[in-house]
């Protein structure tokens, strides 16, 4: 087990167990372990693996999805399943879909939809043209001056023509945007099918991994100090379950620990097989 180096406010502490002042929050330590920039704290340690998300901070009020955590513990030990190759292949196909989606610009239909809705159907303008035509005819029938009526009719016709042109253009833009979206949705459809298949295989793989570690996990739950042994190991309370998962996992990154079940942080570190940051 590689010791860790913690630098806090300019002070360096090194070892398998490092205790920190009470004003440092566990969240800050976790962030530093995961490589985040916390300002006052840096932790030099191994990169945490996914199981660390579940058992990286062990404390009395914690929650844990035991089966998921145990499957990740198995992965931390490089256990594999018969589903892994297919999952990897699906991942590659899903990534190819993502790349294809990125190549297909999405069609934003919203502006064309808005402009069509605002333009209406042109009925009013058509009525205005008919009315202007009627007025012109009336002028002619009564032999009065038609200049004004002609001018109005021309204006109405040109307004209608303008509206029709712009509506046709908006309809065309909308049709093109919809066509682009249709192509994107075909890709998305394919991706969704792949993702569903991947999720199924992931579930199978997880069940297989959990099965493989079931006995070890049960023994670990049994051996957690200071807690009763449940009849069914997966019914164990969150804290002992987390400790048992940590025991079974190959942890390299330090665990942030806030629990009283062990005689000393050193014992806890040995039990978990990981460096400990005591908070």
């Amino acid at each position: 087990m590689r010791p860790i180096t913690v630098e806090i406010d300019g002070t360096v502490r090194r070892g398998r167990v490092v205790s920190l002042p009470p004003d440092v929050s566990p969240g800050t330590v976790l962030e530093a372990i995961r490589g985040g920039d916390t300002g006052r704290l840096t932790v030099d340690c191994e990169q945490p693996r996914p199981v660390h998300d579940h058992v990286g901070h062990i404390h009395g009020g914690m929650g844990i999805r035991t089966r998921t955590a145990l499957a990740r513990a198995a992965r931390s030990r490089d256990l594999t399943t018969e589903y892994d190759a297919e999952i990897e292949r699906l991942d590659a196909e899903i990534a190819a879909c993502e790349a294809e989606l990125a190549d297909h610009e999405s069609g934003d239909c919203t502006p064309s939809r808005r402009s069509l809705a605002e333009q209406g159907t042109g009925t009013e303008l058509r009525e205005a043209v008919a009315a202007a035509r009627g007025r012109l005819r009336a002028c002619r029938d009564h032999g009065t001056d038609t200049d004004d009526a002609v001018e109005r009719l021309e204006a109405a016709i040109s307004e209608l023509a303008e509206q029709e042109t712009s509506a046709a253009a908006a309809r065309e833009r909308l049709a093109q945007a919809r066509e682009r979206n249709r192509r994107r949705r075909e890709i998305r459809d394919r991706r969704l099918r792949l993702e569903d298949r991947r999720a199924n295989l992931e579930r199978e793989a997880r069940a297989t991994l959990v099965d493989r570690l079931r006995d070890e996990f049960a023994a670990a739950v049994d051996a957690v100090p200071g807690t009763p042994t449940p009849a069914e190991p997966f019914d164990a309370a969150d804290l002992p379950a987390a400790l048992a998962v940590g025991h079974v996992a190959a942890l390299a990154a330090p665990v942030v620990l806030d629990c009283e079940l062990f005689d000393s942080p050193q014992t806890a570190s040995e039990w978990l097989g990981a460096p400990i940051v005591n908070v």
Partner: protein
Amino acid sequence: MLLVITYSRAARESLRNVCRAHEESVRRQLGRAALFEPTEFGAFQALRLRAKHGDAVQVERTRPFNEFAAVPAAVREAAAAYESREQPAVPYAAFAAGTAHPSKEKMRDAALEVPERGGEI
């Protein structure tokens, strides 16, 4: 009604949540799609989904299908005649050959009349 189709796992999950929480505005849920009531609240739910998931959510407006208004008599008659044919194994092309029934190609190329309304295409 409003037809809402989802195209991602996240969008499908949101649609299921909406369907669970607002049964009264959902006419029918079909896997990753659903038919919402044509009310402002149905539209509100559809727009929420689209705002959240972008083009992974498709919203279309359906209208009742009246075959007597939208479909030529020859097509309706062909459908009825083909479904009451005596030899089940006959493909439509063979069934229609030499009769007055329209060919598959002719029907495929003929779009149904769509009333133009508010920019729907």
